[in-house]
């Protein structure tokens, strides 16, 4: 068990030194305080997918039971990756340490820990790179900013590479576009070579490999969960959609993050998908095999990410669908937009996506053949294919959180906003430099949404929370909309701590609230089975009459 810190002894309390130790960053070793790091991955999860060095360990232990030759493994791995990734080689060489990125990282702003400055998180790796891969580093050592790779350094890597959510805000502000997420990915790949993985990432990777989704929902569990969602849809609208699963010959395959099939408020967004697709009579199918859009493998190594992502194209080919729609998820769309086709493409067994309802050609997806659901829905609304009654969302005062990956790895800004503005009458933007490409992260991305590192998550999410607080104060905002499953999972606790009174929802929950479905009964409840605004005054005894 992680050692609990004893209460401070009297003499410790008396000398409250207000200024922390000012040692040079090369020397200050890392202290694993509970609440600021995740548990180490357990044996079962590593064995299931063949990751090296599965063993019993905790990051706070002194001995991490690393393989004897761990140092050679790491350096050999670094050499191989320098040869395989121009980004890694370049970002190790061209940083001029100008400090433009230093105060842009939400973990630095929230924690004040200098090693959370993106430039320093990179220097943790660069200092080792210089020592073993540059003549200057070898000759001048510390003078040239180089240092030995020791176990303490490896622990420091682990502590800080699992304290970066790979949100890439630093690469927006770097004059050369140095992307700390790339360096963190390389760091995590190297750590994985010696078994340095967190439990919260290992679990979903093993589940996704074996059962098709991060949660480990087996086929009948997926259909059973969706049945319960259909019950609720029937209760509020009198209509029971009939989604199909693993159906061959369907026109479209729909892949959503599995978080939407399990946790609140994700399930409300899933209800939104079901209601929308039923209303427009879409010929689509879910898949229990490719039942995960997200990709926690992306937080371990490129190879693992490719092994998990394989299922989507394989299933699309097996079912013979024309193209794919992807649900609301952040990391999923970074992987789909920038990696999927390169890994598992070409997707030539599918055709260029064309909306069967509006005839619009999605040119920006003609290679990967996969369309974002907000692109699809925005097109429906623009062509007047949906009957909407925004007044049903009048009790909500909505603002929108741009997820990091859809913002900086793709550039989806207007589509979700267009939908929200058409389904909600009260919508306010957060301050300009906390949204769009400068959005602040939810603080728990890239697999950091575990429970044990709650303090770390609160620090990381504080800049975004302070932006939400400002619009809560100014406009009375009470609903934070987003298009990411991890956001829907982690923003509620973030709001409970920093901005009580603001709840969280997915964009398609708002859409389904306002959607007037053909043949639906008079709606008295929203997707959360809570009374809609303006229903109480009309009294309970209202008998249902068809709208």
């Amino acid at each position: 068990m992680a050692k609990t810190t004893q209460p401070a002894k009297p003499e410790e309390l008396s000398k409250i030194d207000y200024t922390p130790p000012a040692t040079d960053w090369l020397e200050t070793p890392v202290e694993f305080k509970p609440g600021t790091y995740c548990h180490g991955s357990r044996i079962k999860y590593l064995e299931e997918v063949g990751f090296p060095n599965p063993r019993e360990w905790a990051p706070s232990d002194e001995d991490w039971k690393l393989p004897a030759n761990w140092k050679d493994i790491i350096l050999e791995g670094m050499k191989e990756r320098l040869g395989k990734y121009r980004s890694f080689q370049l970002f190790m060489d061209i940083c001029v340490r100008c400090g433009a990125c230093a105060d842009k990282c939400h973990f630095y702003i929230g924690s004040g820990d200098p090693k959370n400055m993106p430039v320093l998180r990179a220097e943790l790796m660069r200092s080792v790179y210089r020592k073993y891969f540059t003549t200057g580093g070898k000759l001048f050592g510390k003078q040239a900013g180089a240092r030995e790779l020791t176990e303490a350094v490896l622990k420091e890597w682990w502590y800080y590479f699992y304290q970066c959510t790979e949100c890439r805000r630093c690469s927006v502000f770097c004059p050369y576009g140095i992307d700390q997420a790339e360096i963190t990915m390389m760091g995590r790949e190297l750590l994985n070579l010696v078994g340095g993985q967190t439990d919260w990432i290992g679990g979903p990777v093993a589940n996704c490999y074996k059962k098709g989704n991060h949660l480990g929902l087996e086929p009948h569990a997926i259909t059973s969960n969706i049945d319960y969602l259909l019950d609720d849809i029937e209760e509020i609208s009198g209509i029971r959609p009939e989604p199909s699963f693993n159906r061959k010959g369907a026109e479209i395959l729909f892949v959503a993050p599995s978080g939407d099939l399990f946790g609140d408020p994700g399930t409300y967004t899933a209800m939104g998908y079901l209601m929308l697709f039923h209303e427009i009579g879409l010929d689509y199918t879910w898949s229990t095999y490719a039942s995960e859009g997200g990709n926690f493998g992306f937080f371990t190594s490129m190879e693992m990410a490719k092994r998990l992502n394989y299922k989507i194209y394989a299933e699309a080919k097996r079912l013979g669908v024309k193209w794919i729609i992807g649900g609301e998820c952040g990391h999923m769309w970074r992987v789909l937009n920038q990696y999927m086709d390169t890994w598992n493409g070409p997707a030539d067994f599918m055709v260029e996506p064309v909306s069967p309802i509006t005839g619009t050609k999605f040119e920006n997806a003609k290679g990967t053949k996969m369309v974002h659901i907000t692109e699809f829905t925005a097109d429906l609304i623009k062509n007047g294919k949906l009957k909407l009654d925004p007044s049903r969302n009048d009790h909500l005062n909505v603002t929108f959180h741009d997820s990091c990956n859809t913002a900086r790895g793709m550039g989806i800004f207007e589509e979700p906003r267009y939908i929200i503005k058409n389904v909600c009458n009260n919508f306010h933007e957060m301050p300009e430099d906390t949204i769009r490409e400068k959005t602040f992260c939810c603080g728990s991305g890239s697999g950091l949404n575990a429970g044990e590192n709650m303090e770390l998550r609160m620090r990381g999410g504080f800049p975004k929370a302070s932006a939400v607080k400002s619009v809560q104060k100014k406009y009375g905002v009470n609903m934070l909309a987003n298009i990411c499953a991890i956001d829907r999972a982690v923003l509620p606790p973030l709001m409970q701590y920093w901005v009580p009174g603001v709840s969280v929802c997915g964009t398609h929950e708002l859409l389904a609230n306002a959607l007037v479905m053909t043949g639906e009964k008079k709606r008295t409840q929203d997707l959360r089975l809570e009374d809609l605004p303006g229903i109480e005054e009309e009294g309970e005894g209202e008998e249902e009459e068809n709208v």
Partner: protein
Amino acid sequence: MASIEVDGKSYEIDDDGYLVDWQQWNENIATHMAKEEGIDLTEEHWEIIRFLRDYFQKYQIAPMIKILTKEIGKTMGKEKGNTKYLYQLYPAGPAKQACKYAGLPKPTGCV
């Protein structure tokens, strides 16, 4: 990895205190864990633990909150079976111990 002693047999638990191998679970582990935290388990209590065990047996994962509220509603009376009422009554209930009692692993991922 820590472990707990119940009737002379030791069972492995992980960093958060969850039973590592859920098959090992038996009723007196639950009683042991509950007694340790000063809670005695009533018959109604056991009913729910058994429901969770059966659900897990069948689906290999914990039930969704929506499922549990519906099932509780059936066994404990309609008005207790909706999420809003239960969240209100137990916003910060000691859920963690309950999970340990039933000895079920935690769902992980984008949740």
